[in-house]
């Protein structure tokens, strides 16, 4: 083991209480985000600091008497915190409270507070739209879709994005961020067939499955039925298309273990939509195969991953286009992957 140079965290409480130590998470850019929770004199602080130098990037100070707790570091570089007196606050990547969207401003008492959601006081996120609260004495769901009120629920892409590591509070990284799992998605099966309910319309059904990516090789993760795969869809070219926007309860698209997606125009006409996949609220790459040749000239397939993709759906066919796939990190897949390419080529 090598030991780094110790340095101070940016908290100066006037008293120290046994058993109370700062809570730390890893932010999207790899910096630490910590809070001392309480400081009855100066007010508690949330601060972002460099892991290598200890220098403070920004800090946010609460009011004396408040208790601040970190809920999660978010994919936009910010952090979601809870203030015991006001509610949930989203701090930006520079530590400023995010302003609410027009028309969604909440009122705390008689005073409107920018960036604070008193409705989520003490609640924790369950998925991309629901938070769980026990404020009433029993567990209840609160509707707060990803991004509404400027409080995102996609986690930072780091190994410790939440206080106590994962959603279960097990002091370990989320399942897909562990060395032994390192999850991505890839199609397990991919088939096109005539839709029996809409004559003349083809349906492309892709079943996405959880894979582990180890040393450039994809392998299916079997028997993990608790892992929640979710999809958000944005920028549809057809406003009549039902998409997974997570802004309405019916718009949810999620599944455990595997995710079947039927690409079909229905009766609303052709459309193109951008898809973003997440595994347990962690944005995930989707790998698709590409035909090529190895150094001996034999045909091979190589899988490349991308964090988003466009689905182009027409009456007769559906095709997928990966957005900025990482062509520098190709992978092999010897079992469990469909060999059909994103554009539908067999």
């Amino acid at each position, binding site marked *: *083991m*090598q*030991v*780094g*140079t*110790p*340095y*101070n*965290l*940016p*908290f*100066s*409480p*006037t*008293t*120290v*209480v*046994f*058993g*109370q*130590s*700062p*809570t*730390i*998470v*890893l932010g999207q850019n*790899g910096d*630490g985000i910590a809070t*001392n929770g309480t400081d009855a004199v100066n007010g508690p602080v949330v601060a972002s600091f460099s*892991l*290598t130098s*200890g220098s403070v990037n920004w800090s946010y100070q609460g009011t004396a008497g408040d208790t601040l707790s970190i809920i999660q570091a978010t994919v936009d570089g910010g952090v979601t915190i809870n203030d015991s007196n006001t509610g949930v606050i989203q701090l930006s990547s520079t530590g400023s409270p995010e302003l609410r969207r027009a028309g969604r401003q909440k009122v705390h008492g008689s005073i409107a507070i920018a960036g604070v959601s008193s409705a989520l006081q003490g609640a924790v996120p369950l998925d991309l739209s629901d938070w769980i609260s026990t404020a009433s004495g029993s567990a209840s769901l609160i509707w707060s879709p990803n991004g509404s009120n400027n409080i995102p629920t996609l986690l930072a892409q*780091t*190994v*410790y994005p939440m206080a106590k*590591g994962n959603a*279960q509070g*097990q*002091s*370990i*990284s989320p*399942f897909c*961020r*562990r*060395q*032994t*799992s390192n999850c991505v998605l890839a199609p397990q099966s991919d088939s096109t067939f005539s839709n029996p309910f809409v004559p003349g319309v083809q349906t492309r059904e892709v079943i996405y499955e959880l894979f582990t990516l180890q040393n450039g090789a994809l392998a299916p993760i079997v028997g993990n039925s608790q892992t929640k795969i979710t999809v958000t869809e944005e920028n549809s070219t057809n406003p009549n298309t039902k998409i997974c926007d997570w802004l309405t309860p019916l718009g949810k698209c999620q599944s455990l273990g595997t995710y079947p997606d039927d690409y079909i125009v229905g009766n609303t006409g052709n459309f193109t939509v951008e898809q973003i996949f997440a595994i347990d609220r962690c944005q995930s790459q989707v790998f698709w195969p590409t035909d090529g040749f190895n150094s001996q000239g034999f045909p091979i397939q190589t899988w490349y991953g991308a964090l988003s993709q466009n689905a182009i759906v027409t009456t007769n066919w559906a095709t997928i286009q990966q957005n900025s796939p990482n062509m520098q990190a190709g992978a092999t897949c010897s079992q469990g992957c469909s060999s059909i390419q994103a554009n539908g080529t067999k």
Partner: protein
Amino acid sequence: MPLTVVDLDPVYGQPMWSLQAAGIQQGNSILYCYGGGDAPQIAVRGDGAVVVSEPTNNGFPPLSVMNIPPNGAGVSYPIPTSTNTMNGKAIDVQCCMGPPMVNVDGTIYVEYEVRNTVNNVITSDTLYLQQINVDNSWPSKVLSSTTQNQALLPGSIIPHGQGGVLATWTISPCCPPNPPAIQYPYRRRTWSLCR
């Protein structure tokens, strides 16, 4: 009733294993003594093994790993004791443990403190980082030490994303009720694993 950590079957709710605190013999009865802030701290390894550390010397085992695959065995680890000397009479006591954490590779980390006092003055205090590897070896290293009448209270640990961990602790001037203030009592240190 002794303080007990119980793992319940998720379907039937039946206890699968449990870990109990020991009591103190006081006259003809057993005293169970638990205060505020001394609830056991728990982490869960990816293979289902459960790490339990006890912050104080309330009778609960200081560090245990339960439900270890493949047969669900449990192990308690010996943590060095501290010495409390008062008017020339020395007693060995268990001092303080921090919360456990499991790194991305399955390695368990937890901090513990060895504090030696003489007539309520901390003559030496050493903070250790205990590691329990997936091969069941369990080396420890000194994080910090002092002879300045200060306590080095174990704190939280998180993975730093490059294979190693961040370890934090609190420097607490001795002794209540009116300890002198100290600026920046919370410290952290980066540990990297050499493999």
